[in-house]
């Protein structure tokens, strides 16, 4: 079974002056998988995501996302990806329905599609009662689920999640991951960064970034064996510490 590769990254580099934020990283992400993109703060994760979502130019190297070049075919690329960050993407002064309508609209959905999608989202999240409530009055955990649903409103091939669950309780995180699984069942590839190592274990494959380099990549089982660890926490600490010694 040779799965289609929806993200192909080859020797991708980003430097800011003399500082190397992302150093020659290469990896592939297969269609339909949940790819965990891990690393400590300042390891270069966000820079890499910005390049892959077409909002930051790369210094050198090549990458295609959903088949489009990250530097040359940005508009096509953006039509085919979704993005959600820990920073809030929903408008607090618009209602739940209005947010869905706005994002649907700027992704070019027709009025009919918007209506259909709105119903779908409200039903899936069971939020019909608060469809006309302002986002500012909705609790954080719900907002995150809504934000995720809005990020995939246009059925993208890939959705990028940048620390989507930071700041919410374990139960809400669980529910959030259920949404992610549902999305993969619809054929959406998920590219996710997280701080929570237990979440890393939900991923099909993981890459571990340390100071601009990808230090390890593989499935959770492969990494546990390779680094002789009991859990992902240990893998993470070993890799990070290893780097400190150098």
């Amino acid at each position, binding site marked *: 079974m040779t799965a289609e590769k929806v993200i192909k990254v080859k020797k991708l580099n980003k430097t800011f002056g003399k500082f190397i934020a992302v150093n020659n990283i290469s990896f592939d992400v297969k269609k339909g998988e949940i790819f965990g993109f891990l690393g400590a703060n300042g390891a270069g994760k966000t820079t890499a995501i*910005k390049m892959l*979502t*077409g*909002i*930051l*130019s790369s210094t050198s190297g090549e990458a295609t996302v959903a088949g489009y070049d990250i530097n040359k075919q*940005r*508009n096509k690329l*953006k*039509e085919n*990806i979704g*993005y*959600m*960050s820990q*920073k*809030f*993407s*929903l*408008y*607090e*002064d*618009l209602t739940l329905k*209005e947010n869905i*309508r*706005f*994002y649907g*609209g*700027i*992704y*070019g959905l027709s009025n009919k599609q918007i209506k259909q999608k709105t119903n779908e989202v409200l039903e899936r999240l069971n939020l019909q009662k608060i469809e006309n409530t302002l986002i500012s009055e909705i609790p954080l955990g719900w907002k995150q689920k809504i934000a995720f649903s809005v990020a995939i409103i246009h059925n993208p091939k890939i959705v*990028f999640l940048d620390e989507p669950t930071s700041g919410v309780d374990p139960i809400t995180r669980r529910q959030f991951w259920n949404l992610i699984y549902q999305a993969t069942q619809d054929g959406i590839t998920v590219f996710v960064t997280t701080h929570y190592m237990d979440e890393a274990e939900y991923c099909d494959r993981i890459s571990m970034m340390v100071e601009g380099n990808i230090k390890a990549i593989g499935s959770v089982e492969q990494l546990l064996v390779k680094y002789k660890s009991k859990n992902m926490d240990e893998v993470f600490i070993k890799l990070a510490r290893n780097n400190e010694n150098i």
Partner: protein
Amino acid sequence: MRKILFIIQKEFKQIFRNKAMKPILFVMPFVQLAVLSYTADFTVKNINLFVQDMDNSVLSKELISKIAAFNNFNLKEISNSYKKGFYKIQQNNIDVIVSIPQNFSKNLQTNKKTEVAIIADAINGTKAGVSINYLQNIILDFTKEQASKKGFTNIKQGVNIIKRNWFNPLLNYKLFMVPGILVLLVTMIALFLSGMNIVREKEIGTIEQLNVTPIKKYQFIIGKLLPFLILGIFEFSIGLIIAVLWFKVPILGSITLIYLFTIVYLILILGIGMLISTITNTQQQALFLAWFFSVIFILMSGLFTPIESMPVWAQNITLFNPIRYYVEVIRLIMLKGSSFSSISNNFIIISFAAIFVNLLAVFNYQKTV
């Protein structure tokens, strides 16, 4: 195009949902128009006068009553002590001292040279200048009268100046100021609304989300600009109605021309606001920058002080001041009935500036770093 409509719809919802916004849009400008139009009046009234009469004659009394009869003067005191008057000026109770010398009456009647001193408190230069001007006219008039009564013909006749104020025959300052103030309020609203807008999305972080969507830069800027253009025109229309119905400012020229110019002008101002929004990172920075520009624009607009009396270097700076052009144009069209040919220069300048600034704003709005 459809994407732009979604942005416009969102902007309008956000504007009208903001509780502070309604008074800012629908009350503040009109309070400004009403209040400022009454206060920004350059005629000097209520000049407090002290007369030192050392002659104490029939003629000096006659002169005093002639001065006192002038509406803008309040004759506070007549005395023969100069010291007293000087003290009152120091106390800020008196603006001007008129000092009539001894032998005033005698000299006048024998056609000898006589001098009346006018001492004005020039802390307020405008008031002092205007008071002296008023008094000179009254005294000159008076001496002429006296001379002709006595049959003297060899007094200095000077040039008889006949004043006639065209286009504003009664020198009604409201006619002059209301269109100008209307310009100011439309400018402020447009500049501040647009200046604070994109930067707000930066502050709350939604800009990041918009940047990963396939909206093009120009779609984004147009979507942001159009709602404010519509609001600006709405504000202007209400202001114009108040100006015409309440302040009785005439519109001698073409209303279409006024609107045409206003639209181009608003696009320029909104572009400046967008530019401010794109180069700043917080609403606070944007606010200060918008203030910086609006203060300079307003004070150097020729609205409160004539551009002709500024130093040459400052006059050159006003060439970059959009308010200057708009104030000129709106006064010309409303009060003078000027047609397109007489404002075409300003129209071309503002149009080019609008195109330039908006292109700069689109260019400067970085969707990619």
